[in-house]
């Protein structure tokens, strides 16, 4: 299957111009072939189909958001550039997997039962979470209620009602209640971001 370089160049120019519809055309033409490239080059090193899709999607989405990262004047095709990006990410992914396997090969996977369902908690997640809370907990959980807010936040709870219940502020007027929930969520998020930058 051949990819028309002129067509891709035209789409790239539209991305640079800020045409919001260009990304769809890019995905339609390139997504499948880019997944194919990822599998062809990296399946032998452990990349499966889902991961190949993730790699291809990331490369395309990053390009859509920052089209200037590809400079057509330097020669080379847009598809070649995207393949290079996928290759780089796949290699990093492979290194991470190798490190993870070596580091955690001695630890068992923990099975968690919640409401009749079972979940596997990979050892690295459990160990990392315990390690992070032991070392950095006091920086994240400062005020009363922060621990409950953090738990809800990490579960990606979007509804404000559980937060309000956790903070004991259900009695407040809706506007005040929502403002307080947002304030507490924003503080937790800010502390996590600061911590992430340091680590």
């Amino acid at each position, binding site marked *: *299957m051949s990819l028309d370089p002129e067509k891709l160049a035209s789409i790239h120019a539209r991305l640079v111009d800020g045409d*919001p519809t260009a990304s769809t055309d890019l995905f*339609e033409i390139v997504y*499948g072939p880019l997944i194919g490239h990822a599998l062809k080059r990296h399946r032998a090193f452990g990349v499966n189909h889902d991961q190949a899709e*993730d790699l291809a999607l990331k490369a395309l989405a990053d390009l859509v958001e920052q089209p200037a990262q590809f400079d057509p004047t330097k020669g080379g095709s847009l598809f070649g550039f995207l393949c290079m990006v996928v290759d780089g990410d796949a290699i990093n992914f492979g290194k991470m997997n190798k490190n993870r396997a070596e580091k955690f090969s001695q630890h068992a996977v923990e099975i968690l039962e919640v409401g009749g369902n079972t979940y596997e908690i990979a050892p690295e997640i459990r160990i990392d979470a315990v390690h992070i809370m032991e070392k950095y907990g006091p920086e994240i959980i400062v005020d009363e209620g922060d621990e409950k807010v953090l738990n809800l936040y990490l579960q990606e709870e979007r509804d404000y009602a559980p937060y309000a219940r956790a903070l004991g502020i259900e009695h407040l007027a809706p506007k005040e209640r929502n403002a307080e929930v947002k304030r507490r969520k924003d503080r937790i998020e800010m502390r996590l971001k600061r911590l992430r930058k340091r680590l």
Partner: protein
Amino acid sequence: MTADTISTNPDLFERAVASLTQRPSFMAHLLSVAFAGDVSTARLVAELDCAPASAIRLALMRVPRNDRKMFREDVDRISEAAGVDRMLLLAIIRQAQSLIAFGVDGSANDQQGMLLAARDVVQRSDDQED
């Protein structure tokens, strides 16, 4: 690849849409906010009143730019390319931006500019229709 790739591989592109809900610069994210996280093709088709491939195409597009003039042009372009009613699209974008402005999806409030642009475009459209 031909232009109907999405029609022949809908599952692949539906998964892409689901992943792109995490990227605020894509329409998939706005649609996810507007429809409470449900960006299944069935939901998009019902809400946007369009064909399945058109719904997926829309979700893969970028969100309109914040600048008021560009916002109007981008909405026109998106609605035309996806075959979706312009006023319906505008209403959905406005709904999503309102939710984002009130912190429902936890993203930063630099979407406020788009909210103002959306309100401005809708008000002007209403005036023109009188």
